[in-house]
């Protein structure tokens, strides 16, 4: 599965970068969303993907009964998902404010600090 995911993640990165290179600020934000998702998948995939073995320990046992998926990358990705959401909501509100003031969805019109 990992080679397929590698290709998928590559495509996600490509789309994210394409969107971040647009002049439209909304597209920039969409690019950011794609990028954070792609990065999460990257971490998840690099650690190896395991089917049907969640890192859970049954009641009464002190260790998993069989080999489980690596829990550490999962914890990292979990943190990253939530942080990405925080950053995204801040960015989205920021561009809404920017749009109210500049009245344009164009990064090139936001080059002056006065406006």
């Amino acid at each position, binding site marked *: 599965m990992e080679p397929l995911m590698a290709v998928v993640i590559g495509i996600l990165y*490509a*789309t*994210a970068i394409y969107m971040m290179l647009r002049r439209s600020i909304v597209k920039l934000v969409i690019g950011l969303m794609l990028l954070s998702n792609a990065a999460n998948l990257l971490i998840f995939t*690099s650690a190896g993907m395991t089917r049907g073995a969640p890192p859970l320990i049954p009641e009464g046992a002190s260790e998993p009964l069989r080999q489980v998926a690596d829990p*550490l990358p999962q914890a990292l990705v979990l943190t990253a998902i939530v942080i990405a959401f*925080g950053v995204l909501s801040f960015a989205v509100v920021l561009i809404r404010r920017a749009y109210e003031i500049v009245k344009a969805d164009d990064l090139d019109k936001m080059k002056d600090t006065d406006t």
Partner: protein
Amino acid sequence: MQLAVLGGFVLAAFAPLLHRWFGERAGLVMAILPAGLALWLFGQLPSVVAGDTLVFEYAWMPGLDITLTFLLDGLSLLFALLISVIGVFVLVYAGGYLKGHQDLARFHVVLVAFMMSMLGLVLADNLVAMFVFWELTSITSYLLIGFNHNDPEARKSALQGLFVTVGGGMALMAGLVMLANAGNSWSLQELITRGDALRQHELYLPMLLCLLGGAFTKSAQFPFHFWLPNAMAAPTPVSAYLHSATMVKAGIYLMARLHPALGGTESWTLILSLFGALTMVTGAFLALRHTGIKQVLAYSTVMALGTLTMLLGIGTQEALIAFATFLLAHSLYKGALFMVAGILDHETGTKDIAAMGGLRKAMPITMVCAVVAALSLGGIIPMLGFIGKELMLESVLHAERLNGLLLMMSLAAAIMTMAAAAIVALRPFFGSWKDTPRSPHEGPVSMLAGPATLATLSLLFGLLPSWVSPLVMATASSVEGSAVDSYLALWHGVNLPLILSLISLAVGLLIYRHWERWRDWQGRLDPILNRGPEACYFLLMNLIVVVSEWQTRMLQNGYIRNYLVMTLLVLVGLTSHALVYRHDLVLDVSLDVRAHEALVAGLMVAGAVTACIMRSRLASVAAVGTMGFCIALTFVLFSAPDLGITQMLVETLTVILLILVLFRLPRFATLSTPLERVRDVVVALATGGLITVLILAVISGEQLPSISDYMVANSVPEGHGHNIVNVILVDFRALDTLGEIFVLALAAIGVYAMLRFHADEYDAAKQRLPHEEYLDG
């Protein structure tokens, strides 16, 4: 010893305080330190003359082989004595020259710091320590030249001096590193005993050129001679000290110090004697072109520095004795003459020799000092300068290479120097009286003490050469690398050097008589001379400005996409290079995919691509949402239920937020040209491809043992939780989670604040302030 020098830096820091306590006499108080050092150095004279090398060990950074060990042999003793003795007089003199100047305290800070850097430079045994002191002299010299910082000319000259000397410092550093590697030591003491190995080293020539690059720039050798006369923008005490007696001799010191290690080869002899002779003639020639008294003296200093370099190049024992004598003689008379120039400038209000005349009645003591010092400069019996010049001519006569050429150049330089000496000493004091901006009278005692003492010493040492003979021989011995047994004498009998001296005296005086006509004739060469090295310097400076403007426009253009493109291209370029050339790339592409997984992956790609090409915001957001839910499914399919749940929740919230907030925004407009889009697609695909290759390389490569085994094993015993991911988040990596909570809280506060502040309030605020240009359209 180290304590005295380092203490001097502390003293420099306290100079403003001393000014508060002692007022105008602070300079005198500070002069106690160099005076004490000078006395102590005199105390070491007997043992150094006896041929001992005194070593003062002091470890600085032992782990890096850097010491602050000081070395006292003939060469460093002569330099240290000159620095501290002339330093005393300059401190006293500056008190008179800059009397009442508001920045006198600042002046003392830098001057004393300079003095100590210079002492450290000539005493240091370790190459790194020497280099540090070397650069410190450049910096303090910069501050002193630009002391009158309100004068744009002074600032320009200071910067020029700094650029030239620090540029040379770069070369010097490279040279020192090569030297230390070739000689396998950072200690000068050890390096000078390894001369044979160094001279045969394959890096000998580059090493020599780099070291000479440093020495030539510092000591104003052709073609770097132009900065020294410009440095005359400094207050005269500074010129007397830095630009005649001490700092400019740092390069000479370096060459003399390395003579036993590197000298004696074909390239050493040719480079040093040719450039030295060229500098000598250039300096003497240009000295006659100017009428500013400090300019004339500065060019004659260039002449002297050239002579010293040439003598080091010739390198015979005779030449080295001449070197030591000339060095001492030059420091004495040039210090005296600069101080005389300062008195003239201070008392008459002009620096132009042509504007002065008949001052002998007004300032008799100054006149005597000037004439005595100038006799030494011109090399007339019975001054120390005479002995130096005789020895110089004799060693040139006996030089092994190029002696005919060098002799002619030396004679020409001697003639013109004679004329320059006469101009400086006779013009202002004799002839008819000329009115000057200030009515002249004798300078104060503080200003006369220095020139009087130094001029007397020039005379005394000339009459009684046996007094300085031991020190001169000890210096020559350190430069030679083995003991030199000889003595100085005033009278060598009637020989060729004496005849040449007489010729130079006669022709020099002839030029002096017809100085005006000589200058007119020389002025015709100006169009050629103006295209000299200084023009190249300005060309280079302008080029730097043009190039930086261009590259700033290229790189710092304010468009985020250009920064991104540049960063990504560099990333892709460097990483793929490393992947291809440094890494045995093994890509494992064995596919083990089930149909439903492939479907989810395909949907993910479709969502992302659709988000890119849709023209409506809502469609784009929906496509991104589809992709997000597919990712959540992937998490669930591959043993990460927690991630799946979180992703699902966050994705739902994100879509709702985006739709609510972006509702009011317009449809996407086409803002970029097709060409730009092609460029972006290429960059994006390149980066994406790189990421794919990287992941494949990671998963096919060798995996290091994971630290999560510990967490799996201790989740229940230590963390009392059965969901290992949760235990990691709230227990093993709890601080991370705390930080995450802070980030979210901050984002929430920001979102709240921005939603509260509405645009109409902004407009209202704008209307309340109609005069302010809030918006520019």
